[in-house]
């Protein structure tokens, strides 16, 4: 795109950091392209929070500020039930994902063909949410005749959250030093003691991370839930139907989403702190 002056001289010149680029501008163009998209991801969150305090949330001007949408939110109790459903499903999905990912993740690196099992475990990541939701819906409803609701949402969310949880646990278990386990049993510890006193504390950051990610993935899941909800309504489905059907409900949705962000973002910050500060020590 850009003609470069005398590219042959560049490798010798001090400060040419990138052996893959002629033009000095490429790296910063690459950087700013991504930065603009990151801005476009996060600006709506900021704007959402700002407009939730606005008198006219769907207008272009945030002023004047008001708390009336928050007042309206607390007068309106319809969102409490979906909120409770989402919370309990997410807690269960987080706990189940953490336990199962730990169980599978600590054995998987020791087995003969971890690759094949891993591909199978990661399969749901590559199946679009709509297709996976439809598949589980048809299987549970039309083939097994299960009544859809809490349980089917739980199953759908587990399938979605588990690959992430497993990857997080595998980060630690693939680097796990098995001489620790041998030393522990040589010194007379039972296998349960070895697990509980040696392995578990070492894996704890990953287990907590897996649980947190499972919780958050489930709490905000919508595509699979649309198919699997039956008569149940979760928080994202409630937000979606309210936002899609009634313009008058949108300000309340803004307020609600802002509160959820205020809870979710610190949790995520904590999860990443765990991942980077605690797991990346070596």
């Amino acid at each position: 795109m850009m003609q470069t002056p005398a590219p042959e001289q560049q490798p010798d010149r001090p400060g040419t950091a990138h052996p893959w680029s002629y033009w000095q501008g490429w790296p910063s163009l690459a950087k700013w392209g991504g930065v603009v998209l990151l801005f476009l991801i996060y600006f709506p969150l900021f704007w959402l929070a700002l407009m939730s305090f606005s008198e006219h949330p769907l207008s272009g001007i945030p002023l004047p500020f008001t708390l009336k949408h928050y007042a309206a939110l607390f007068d309106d109790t319809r969102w409490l039930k979906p909120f409770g459903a989402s919370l309990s499903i997410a807690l269960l999905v987080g706990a189940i994902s953490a336990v199962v990912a730990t169980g599978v993740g600590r054995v998987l690196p020791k087995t003969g063909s971890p690759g094949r099992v891993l591909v199978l475990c990661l399969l749901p990541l590559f199946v679009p949410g709509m297709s996976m939701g439809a598949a589980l819906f048809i299987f549970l409803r039309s083939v097994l005749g299960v009544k859809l609701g809490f349980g089917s949402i739980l199953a759908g969310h587990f399938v979605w959250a588990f690959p992430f949880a497993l990857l997080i646990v595998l980060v630690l278990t693939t680097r796990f030093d098995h001489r620790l386990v041998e030393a522990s049993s040589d010194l007379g510890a039972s296998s349960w003691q070895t697990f509980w006193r040696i392995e578990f504390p070492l894996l704890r950051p990953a287990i907590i991370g897996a649980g947190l990610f499972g919780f958050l993935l489930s709490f905000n899941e919508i595509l699979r839930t649309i198919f699997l909800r039956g008569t149940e309504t979760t928080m994202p489905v409630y937000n979606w139907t309210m936002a899609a059907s009634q313009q008058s409900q949108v300000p309340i949705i803004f307020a609600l989403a802002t509160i959820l962000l205020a809870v979710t973002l610190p949790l995520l910050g904590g999860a990443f702190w765990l991942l980077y500060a605690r797991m990346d020590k070596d």
Partner: protein
Amino acid sequence: MMMTVNSLSIPAHPANRSFSRFVANGDWVIPVFLVVWFALVVVPLVVLFAFSFFDTKSYMTIYEPSLNTWMSLLESGRLGVTLRSLRIALTVTLIDLVIAFPFALWLAKGRTSKSTRAIVIALLTIPFFLDISSRTIIWRAILGENGAINSLLKSLGLIDAPLNWMLYTEWSVHFGMVIASFPTMVLPIYLAISIIDDALIEASGDLGASPAQTLFRVIVPLALPGVIAGVLLTLGFALAAWIEPSMLGGGFVNLLSNSVESAFTALRYPVVAALSTFVIVLLVALLFILLLLTRRFSDVLSAFRVLKN
């Protein structure tokens, strides 16, 4: 899970010792897990595929194999929707790839500090955990006729009438989807690039390769597994996008998800199955095309090595 709890409460009882060793040893976990996982993931997908060969008559599913449902996908109305979904999904994937690959390269090999990398990766991962519908609906207040951008431009005197191509058009659907799927494109490419040995890149330069040669003959082939994963993930997302077209398209941009939704509410489950299978079949076909095209560049199996690392 229950067994774990039991053995925790009675750890040292002699009769339970072998049992607790059995639990802690964990060799049984993978077979048991695989059975459950098959029932939850593989069997439903097979059933989905099978259902697409059934038919619907007066809100009832007819369990006889037929190609009627698949043929109906080629009918005039649906074919337009399918082609439009494909076109939009490919455009979105291409735009994402063009922005994501240089960004991932900069992030992984651009002399960025460790904390910059950690923060950017965190920023790219966080959106996966946020509610997509409230993140998308807010664009209506930004792009709309009376939204933030139009108000700003009007008060600056740059426009007299509000720009109304920004919302409820194909443009806004593209826009929303490119933003939403950007992290799914960057992260796999970043993973693949970051495990390339710096020595290889330096050696290429030392041996006289031009920067373009180093980029296209060393970095790109080694990053291919990540690029393929990113393209598949983004394309899968874009083909089955549900929230963005319905919220930013305002009913004017019908995609596959709208067809699935109307078939779902009309209890035409074979149509739901065929459309969902169609998305998966497209992805698998694309995977094979990409693998064939890239076979001469790189070892396919290294994709799994990327995942393992």
